[in-house]
């Protein structure tokens, strides 16, 4: 347990030192503020508009950016040390392989969560100050839900990155695989779902199966968590329309999200235990 803490603290500090954490926090804050300020520009008005509409846009945005960041900060956590030549040294220390992966995983998740809290937190405070009518309990609840789900989404992609990191032999391959993972989860998966929708044409079979297909991608689960609480009318009619026939319970969605963290994490542990160094 102590070793896990020591390792995660080092990874967390490395992320801080490499300016990853601060860059991500600034990115989130700037994106959140500009979306909330300029989000209504198409409708001819500039300035802070509906808080829920801002969250909906942020959800779409985070669904693209957070997986990429999660993969980028963590893809080299084991293979990077192997390339560097430090892995052999660390493994000769009195720590188990499970502790090494767990420590690194927790350190990167911590850094990502800190960046999320700092970035979006700052943005929310500014929005709340500038826009008195957004100071409602609901707004805070939705924001809390959003930040929590972003953190879990980040953790899930850090876990996927750790699988990539232990199964590849060199850093370049791991980087390639991380990008492929991002492409598949962010773009290709949803394209395939759309294709299924078009081909099946709304048959009964499709209506009963389709809602569950969304569980197969953590990003879609993340979207569901946020958009289903915001409800329709927030500019998400397309996505909500696809799932209108099914009611998702929040705890089911969070359970699915947690599985998307736990299963890749377990897989990474399993693969690393069998890895030859």
């Amino acid at each position, binding site marked *: 347990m102590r*070793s896990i803490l020591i390792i995660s603290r080092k990874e967390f500090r490395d992320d801080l030192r490499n300016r990853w954490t601060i860059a991500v926090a600034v990115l989130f804050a700037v994106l959140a503020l500009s979306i909330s300020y300029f989000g209504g520009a198409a409708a001819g008005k500039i300035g802070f508009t509906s808080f829920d509409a801002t969250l909906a846009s942020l959800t779409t945005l985070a669904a693209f950016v957070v997986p990429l960041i999660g993969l980028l900060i963590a893809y080299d956590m084991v293979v990077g040390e192997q390339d560097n*030549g430090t892995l052999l*040294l660390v493994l000769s220390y009195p720590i188990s392989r499970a502790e090494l992966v767990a420590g690194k995983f927790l350190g990167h998740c911590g850094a990502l969560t800190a960046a999320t809290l700092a970035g979006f937190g700052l943005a929310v405070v500014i929005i709340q100050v500038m826009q008195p009518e957004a100071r409602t309990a609901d707004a805070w609840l939705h924001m809390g839900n959003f930040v929590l789900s972003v953190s879990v989404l980040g953790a899930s992609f850090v876990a996927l990155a750790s699988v990539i990191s232990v199964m590849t032999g060199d850093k370049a391959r791991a980087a390639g695989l991380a990008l492929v993972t991002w492409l598949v989860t962010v773009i290709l998966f949803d394209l395939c779902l759309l294709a299924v929708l078009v081909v099946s044409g709304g048959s009964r079979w499709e209506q009963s199966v389709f809602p569950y297909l969304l569980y197969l991608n953590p990003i879609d689960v993340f979207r569901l968590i946020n958009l289903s609480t915001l409800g329709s009318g927030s500019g998400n009619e397309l996505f909500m329309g696809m799932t209108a026939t099914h009611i998702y319970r929040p705890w089911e969605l969070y359970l699915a999200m947690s599985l998307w963290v736990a299963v890749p994490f377990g897989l990474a542990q399993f693969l690393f235990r069998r890895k030859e160094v």
Partner: protein
Amino acid sequence: MTNAIDIASLGKRYKGVAALAGVCASVPMGRVIGLLGHNGAGKSTLIKLILGLIKPTSGQVTVLGESPWGQNAVSLRRRIGYLPESVAFYGNLTGSEVIRYLAGLKRAPQQQAGRLLERVGLGHAKDRRISTYSKGMKQRLGLAQALLASPELVVLDEPTAGLDPQATRELYEIVGELRAEGHSVLVSSHVLAELEPHIDSALILRQGELLAAGSIGDLRRQSGLPGIVMVQLKGSSDPAEFVRKLDALGLVHEVRHDGQFNLQIAEGGKLALLQQLASDSAIDDIVVKEASLARLYDYLGAGAKRPGEQSPCAAS
């Protein structure tokens, strides 16, 4: 007292290629043991097996009375210090940050981390980033971390590769101190000549098999390799006359390009021969060379495998 390391018919195969086969050896406590062999002889594989970083395909290793991949593997690793071949560290951290991090992982006191940096002569550079360190400084840092938590067994894999003579000497001084403190040390190297004065005994590997094991004296006796007396004649004396004298005594000799004679010492005949030579007025200078580890190594045929050889495991 148990041995520091016991190795029993140990074998390791990588994708069908044997990196080690049927190695049997033991390393007593409190000794400095050299692990010798050419590149690819299986030195690093053997070290990884001893550290429990990989599992053997056959055979057994017992380190400090425990199995390196058994239940107590984690606590066993606290009692072992390891300097990997061409050690690397986190370039973005400073020397003192790295050693403190590693001390935490090994549950060694933080003050010891600072003391060890001083001991290996890195006190002045402890607040510089590792990326600015020279090869020798990294190697010193590697030695410092290997001594964290005062391990009973210290394993040094090619510790002097890329070091200048001064740094090499300092490294072996520390190895000597470790022996004096009662640590067991396993040093691998292919620079045999520099290793010889510092080790108590040697394990010689060749193509994954243990070729010979024992103290330098044992190895010398095993090989029956003669010592050599190098003789320089006076400018005024006649070499042909000297050769006749040698032939009369039945001495095996060769003449070097600079006119120096190399005489082989027959077993037990060293002092008699030296007396004879010392009284010879034709001789200007005499140098005695015992069979060195490097010559032993060549003699034992570390380069190529001869067919039909028996492995030392089966012999013992």
